[in-house]
């Protein structure tokens, strides 16, 4: 139990650091709003190792801490919407067993981007932003693929450690 708590804390902490690094170092791509979404590596891995409750929990902790650290209520709404929609898509796909970690991660990334555009439309009232959605779907496919591949590499290594039974 303690070990699980410690590991989840570690996951949340890493996810927070990834988000922070991405916030201060933007990708050198001339398309605004495109992020790699490295934090999602941790969320997807948590979904596969511990389960959906734990994945939602560390994501929520990450978003709250980000909001506190950067004190930006707008980005809080955006990340929360992204997290909710992306988990709402990833969980059924993960459960269905028809998808690998890559499909799950692509769905999460595309869902996250879609949620961000919808939130931006709701916040600004600019309906034209919808024109930007297909670009962000494609970027979600690419970043989701990268994140999924990273997850597929890391997951078997983590399973070796056997998170539940680490001897202290």
């Amino acid at each position, binding site marked *: 139990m303690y070990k699980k708590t410690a590991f989840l804390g570690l996951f949340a902490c890493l996810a927070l650091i990834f988000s922070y690094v991405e916030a201060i170092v933007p990708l050198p791509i*001339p398309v*605004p709003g495109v992020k790699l979404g490295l934090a999602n590596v941790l969320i997807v891995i948590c979904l596969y190792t511990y389960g959906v409750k734990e994945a939602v929990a560390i994501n929520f902790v990450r978003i709250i801490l980000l909001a506190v650290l950067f004190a930006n209520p707008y980005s809080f709404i955006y990340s929360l919407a992204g997290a909710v929609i992306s988990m709402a898509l990833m969980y059924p796909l993960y459960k269905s067993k028809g*998808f690998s970690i890559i*499909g799950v991660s692509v*769905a999460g990334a595309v869902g996250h981007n879609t949620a961000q555009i919808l939130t931006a439309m709701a*916040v600004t009232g600019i309906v034209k932003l919808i024109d930007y*959605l297909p670009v962000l*779907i494609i970027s979600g*496919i690419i970043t989701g693929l990268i994140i999924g591949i990273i997850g597929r590499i890391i997951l078997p290594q983590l399973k070796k450690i056997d998170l539940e039974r680490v001897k202290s």
Partner: protein
Amino acid sequence: MKKWDYILIASLTIISVVWIIIILRGQSSGEKVIVKLNDKVIYTALLNEDSEYLIKTGNDYNNLVIKDGEAYIDDANCKGLDCVRMGHISRDGESIICIPHSVIVTVESDKDNNIDFVSE
């Protein structure tokens, strides 16, 4: 990767590519540049005349440049500078949007002018 991964990725790619093609095909080149602040038109200019306009509200600014039939934001003090990174626009319906400053720069064709001004 499993079968459904490929189906998911392929269908998402096809949908977005078709969507982008539809958006691009619907755009002919425009003639007028319209600047909106908080959804109100504050400035209009012709796309074929080189000019510069500073969109300013309080301490916020975005500098609009119209040059060689293209409009772009070359400087601004918003966070992230997404409006600068959105690049050059020249086609009807294209826009540059600065979310933090609530500024929208759109290119429109002359034909629709009356309709657009009625609907403002």
